[in-house]
């Protein structure tokens, strides 16, 4: 087997066209990696500037009523991870700015995609685009005639006479082409590692990503060479593999993505907001003194402080009322957004399971997931932001209630120190361990594909001879 691998490499090395193509791809991969790293750096800088600007605004509040400050609110900006430069995932189609304020849970807005004309249906020229779409195609071109050429030229008989069997031939030729793919992968990942700021989690993610790509390339290469052995001639192999590549990478992801949305339908924005408003209106309206729930709350607080009128309370009842409204609103949010997130996760699982028929989907999912630019990370950010909003508003409402003012004292203001004491939002990516739990299906699909095709070649092709 070793001799065949070495011979294959020698053949590849003799091909001047391939040599030129390899140099070209190496340069492109390095350039794309560097440009993408720079772009993400620029994006992070801009995001940090915007975040700092908003924080400065918050910290420069001289004096303000705590509830007015809740309305004034702040803005959170969705960050991108360092290896987000490798695969942009959902980053350009989702919003980046989230307004945090009292009474309302806002939508994240201002996606990059909504700021200009359409440029590309496959996203920016990132390393992932080249490594997911173009390099596998190059590997197909390198592999599609490796067995069929042997058959057409009659050399295969000679190889059989020398003791090789079909399985060994397929494996040897696959290893040779696969190693070429790994070489191109290594160039990209090496550049990524060089440019990556020292971060254990990100490095781990990057290395795992490398393994995922290695697995996918193995499936592509051995699959193509297997077809090269099975089918009659080069044209048939090329037609089949190209059709397969197009189906796997271009069409099935779109069709299955659409199907997942049809199977697990999300509500329309209008229906969603109407049902949320209906649920919320059943609760305490923060500005509505005649609400039934407020009466119950008032009675409870009056009893607690042993007084008969809110004016006699040593605290500010308005703050308690606002917080109670918030807490009811949070329950409503949990119910409705929880339902949406459940549907989105079901869609994702459906899509992940389609990796059983299309390993490209597993590769795509793992690539986005490991780069921190998938839907799980997006939802994780939104949930973290909502948790922050709740803490933020509670601090303000509690201050309004227990900060020294009495009920109805809307002119009461808090000093700058108080506003500065409220900590800024800090977002951390979910740990790799928890992320991998969400991507077990994709990992199993990739490993399963590799194992299946290896088994087929090993057991079905061992005794077959194509002469």
């Amino acid at each position, binding site marked *: 087997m070793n001799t065949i691998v070495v011979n294959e490499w020698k053949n590849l090395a003799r091909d001047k066209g391939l040599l030129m193509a390899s140099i070209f791809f190496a340069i492109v991969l390095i350039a794309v990696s560097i440009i993408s790293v720079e772009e993400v750096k620029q994006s992070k800088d801009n995001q940090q500037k915007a975040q700092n600007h908003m924080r400065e605004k918050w910290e420069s509040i001289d004096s303000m009523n705590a509830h007015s400050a809740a309305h004034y609110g702040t803005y959170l900006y969705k960050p991108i991870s360092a290896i987000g430069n490798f695969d942009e995932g959902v980053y350009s189609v989702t919003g980046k700015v989230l307004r945090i304020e009292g009474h309302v849970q806002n939508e994240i807005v201002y996606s990059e995609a909504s700021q200009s004309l359409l440029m590309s249906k*496959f996203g920016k020229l990132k390393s992932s685009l080249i490594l997911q779409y173009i390099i596998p195609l190059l590997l197909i071109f390198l592999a599609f005639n490796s067995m069929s050429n042997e058959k057409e030229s009659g050399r295969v008989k000679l190889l059989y006479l020398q003791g090789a069997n079909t399985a060994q031939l397929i494996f040897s030729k696959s290893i040779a082409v696969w190693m070429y793919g790994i070489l191109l992968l290594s160039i990209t990942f090496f550049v990524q590692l060089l440019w990556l700021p020292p971060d254990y989690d990100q490095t781990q993610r990057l290395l795992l990503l490398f393994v995922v790509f290695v697995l996918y390339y193995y499936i592509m290469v051995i699959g193509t060479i297997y077809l090269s052995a099975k089918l009659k001639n080069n044209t048939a192999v090329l037609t089949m593999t190209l059709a397969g590549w197009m189906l796997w990478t271009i069409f099935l992801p779109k069709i299955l993505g659409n199907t997942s949305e049809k199977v697990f339908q999300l509500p329309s924005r209008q229906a969603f907001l109407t049902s949320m408003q209906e649920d919320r209106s059943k609760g305490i309206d923060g500005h509505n003194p005649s609400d039934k729930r407020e009466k119950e709350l008032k009675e409870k607080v009056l009893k607690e402080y042993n007084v008969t009128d809110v004016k006699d309370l040593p605290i500010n009842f308005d703050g308690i009322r606002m917080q109670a409204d918030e807490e009811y609103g949070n329950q409503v949010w949990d119910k409705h957004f929880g339902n949406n997130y459940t549907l989105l996760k079901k869609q994702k699982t459906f899509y992940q399971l389609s990796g059983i028929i299309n390993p490209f989907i597993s590769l795509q999912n793992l690539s986005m997931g490991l780069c921190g630019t998938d839907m799980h990370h997006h939802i994780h950010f939104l949930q973290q932001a909502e948790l922050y909003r709740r803490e933020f508003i509670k601090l303000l409402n509690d201050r309004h209630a227990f900060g020294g003012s009495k009920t109805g004292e809307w002119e009461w203001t808090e000093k700058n120190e108080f506003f500065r004491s409220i900590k800024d939002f800090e977002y951390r990516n979910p740990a790799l361990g928890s992320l991998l739990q969400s991507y077990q299906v994709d990992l199993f699909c990739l490993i399963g594909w590799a194992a299946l095709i290896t088994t087929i070649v090993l057991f079905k092709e061992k005794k077959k001879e194509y002469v």
Partner: protein
Amino acid sequence: MSLIASSIRSENIHFKRNPYKIGALLLFFVAAIYGLQNGYTLYQTQTEEIEKIKIKNKKTSDQVIQWFAEGKSGPENRPWINISDPYWSLWYTPSPVCKTPSGLMPLSIGQAEQFGYYKQVSNRSTPYDADLAEEIANPERLAIGTLDFSFVILFLLPAILLVLLFNIGGLEKDLGFEHLIYISVSDHKIWILGRYLYYLIIIVATILFTVLPYSILTKSMLEHPGKMLHFFLYTFLYVISWMAIFFIVSVAFSGSKNISIVMVALWLTLTVVLPGTSHQLTTLNYPATYMTDLLDAKREEADKISELPKEKIKNLLIASFPELRNSLHYSDTSINEEIINNSVSYLVNNMMKETARKIEVLHEEKNSFIKKLYLINPVGFFQNKLNGIADTDYYSFQLFRNKIQDRINKKVSLMASESWNKVAVDSVRYQQYLKELND
């Protein structure tokens, strides 16, 4: 001509005997129907959603008319509301702005899933509010994109052409009888051209055959014949361009393997690599904005205006809205604070308009850059052209934002002028508001 006719005939025989090519054409047909159906579903969803908004708004306005009829001042649990006051009356006047989907949407979904398509306008609205976010959707599905008809034309069609055309001229070389062909035909390029023409006819017929039923369903053929013609022209131009490229490859290269490799490389370069490169270049030159100016203006500058002394606000209002000089309140010797407060949104809107204009200018700079890159991204050019015809491109949504801005202008102007004229709103007046603030 007879050579072309005979090569068309012989290609017809070859096509019928080739299961791969028949399969490829069937795949194109099925994908076209699937794409059209996806677009049609979105068209229907948006149309139905807009109808629901109209019904909901009708309920709100009927409720207000009922309050007038019953002599009520507003909802019972909100005693501070006085519906005869222009401010509250206009507050309760539904002012929706909807981007009704074009009948051509099934042909190209474009950027329709990236933007919101309806908005309830209030006196505090801007065209960049959070409620204008896109429909609730799976972000990964949005990133992967929808397989719509324009995708089928722009990306699948060249691949299908590749399967149909790659062995024209090449197969003869593979089988070693190319010299026989050169002897038997007077000009082998014309012979190849004839075979290409056969597929051009088949592809164009398939496109027409698939599009026509949907254009009848959405009445776009009757309502927008010009746009339909444009769509067909650009599609035809696109098909012809690809065929011309592939024709050059068929003539310049020999052997179906070489031809197919060059064709695939060209397809990948033109549909994936160059658009991706121009996208990357654009982002490097024009990074996504975080709209900080707009957010500052909305949150702080608006408050600053409200906090100005009433006299100052009054003067600012008169300066920017001279018609107020003819109002009742203008000649009052004392300032009515409520009237001034009810009119502040007019000034805030003016300021927000200016901020929004600056954002649009920034976006336009980015778009100009994208258009310059059409030279290296011709697929992007066709993509945006088709989206533009189907009213699903950036500019269609910019028009929608302009419409929103016009409605806001109308609402705040009405609020100011009616408040300054101390109008006591009744049912008739309210219905006039409804007329003015609805399509």
